[in-house]
């Protein structure tokens, strides 16, 4: 344990996702040894991002406007929606160039052990959106791991009464990983070979 400001910084950094105690300490000491001007750039970037970036009111993707770049684009296919866990998954799928429709970002996966149920994700927003638009096909692209699978199972069941075509990315994706680590070719193939869910 250090004292005062340095320990406060280590504690704050340690609360960031994926940063363990050792990394937090390493970053904190890097910051202490950095030039003041470099740190100003970092704090400015942190402040600006929090001021400017918000969530798209239609799909939940990150944006600096009311609507994100994809929702604003009239050339996108208005009849297909791809449901993903996080904004970074939108980026991964865009790279494949396989999908020309719109997205819906849930904000995570259903994880009861962490206290995260359907109510904590943007599922109600998805239902509202589907009721008021011309969507015909829904592609569920949650992570290829069990939490993603369970979230897909929940969605498929909730969407069934709407009578739309619901499909899940093909199992070319090995289960266990995160969508963001699938290479473009694998992910592209998974899109082509998506299977219809009938449960």
């Amino acid at each position, binding site marked *: 344990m250090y004292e005062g400001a340095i320990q406060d910084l280590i504690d704050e950094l340690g609360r960031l996702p994926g940063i363990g105690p050792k990394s937090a300490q390493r970053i904190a000491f890097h910051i202490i040894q950095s030039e003041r001007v470099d740190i100003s750039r970092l704090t400015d970037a942190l402040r600006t991002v929090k001021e400017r970036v918000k969530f798209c009111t239609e799909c939940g993707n990150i944006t600096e406007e009311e609507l994100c770049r994809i929702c604003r684009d009239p050339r996108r296919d208005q009849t297909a929606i791809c449901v993903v866990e996080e904004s970074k998954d939108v980026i991964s799928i865009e790279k494949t160039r396989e999908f020309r429709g719109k997205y819906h970002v849930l904000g995570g996966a259903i994880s009861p052990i*962490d206290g995260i149920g359907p109510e904590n994700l943007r599922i109600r927003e998805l239902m509202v959106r589907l009721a008021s638009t011309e969507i015909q096909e829904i592609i569920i692209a949650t992570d290829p791991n069990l939490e993603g699978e369970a979230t897909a199972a929940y969605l498929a069941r909730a969407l069934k009464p709407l009578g739309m075509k619901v499909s899940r990315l093909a199992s070319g994706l090995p289960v266990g990983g995160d969508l963001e680590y699938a290479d473009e070719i694998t992910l592209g193939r998974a899109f082509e070979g998506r299977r219809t869910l009938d449960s």
Partner: protein
Amino acid sequence: MAVYRDQAVVLRTQKLGEADRIITLFTKEHGRLRAVAKGVRRTKSKFGARLEPTSFVDLQLYAGKTFDIVTQAQSIENFGEALATDYKNWTTANSILEAAERFTENEHEPALQQFNLVVGALRALAHDTYDSSLILDAYLLRSLGVAGFAPSMTTCSKCDLPGPHKYFSLVGGGSVCVDCRPSAAATPAPQTLSLMANLMTGDWNGAVESEPRSRREASGLIAAYLQWHLERGLRSLPLVERI
């Protein structure tokens, strides 16, 4: 003990760094412990889906300073697919895992009876052996029993007067007679108490005969009893889908 082998159920996973995860394991011989699985989030990881919550695996671990490191994982039984594709099963399994984590208070303390209960409950759930809600309640009751909190179902838990009694008390340890009952005692239906007794002893023939009303009442009592003994409730329990 640099490298060791053990069987384990994966209770929980958390992202770590770029592509790793911290895996909370319930091992057969070393109790609950946390280990790091390197590169497991990459879609081409050698671990595949073998280190996901509910996985029942044979592991090789390397004892590290803060966390042990998983070096090999082989599947013993694969419950994951059956559990994740059915939302009711998944929420139930999550509660079993969370309860197991809470019932194993200290890391590295072997808890073989608890371990066997977890494996048995996940297996019954994956194979749809009984109604998922009954499996969960039986698991919770027996875990409470292993932890030394078995509620009494017939004799008075205060004075040992043979029952069955009308009153059930969280504070009092289950059934209580009319003289011993605290003011907050519940008065569950006799069928509810007999269902709980069946779940506790593993009398499934009796348990599956129970009415939905008794099951609901038993679930409520068990949840309250559990919360009383664990000091705070399970986060996943309100999210469990019960039909």
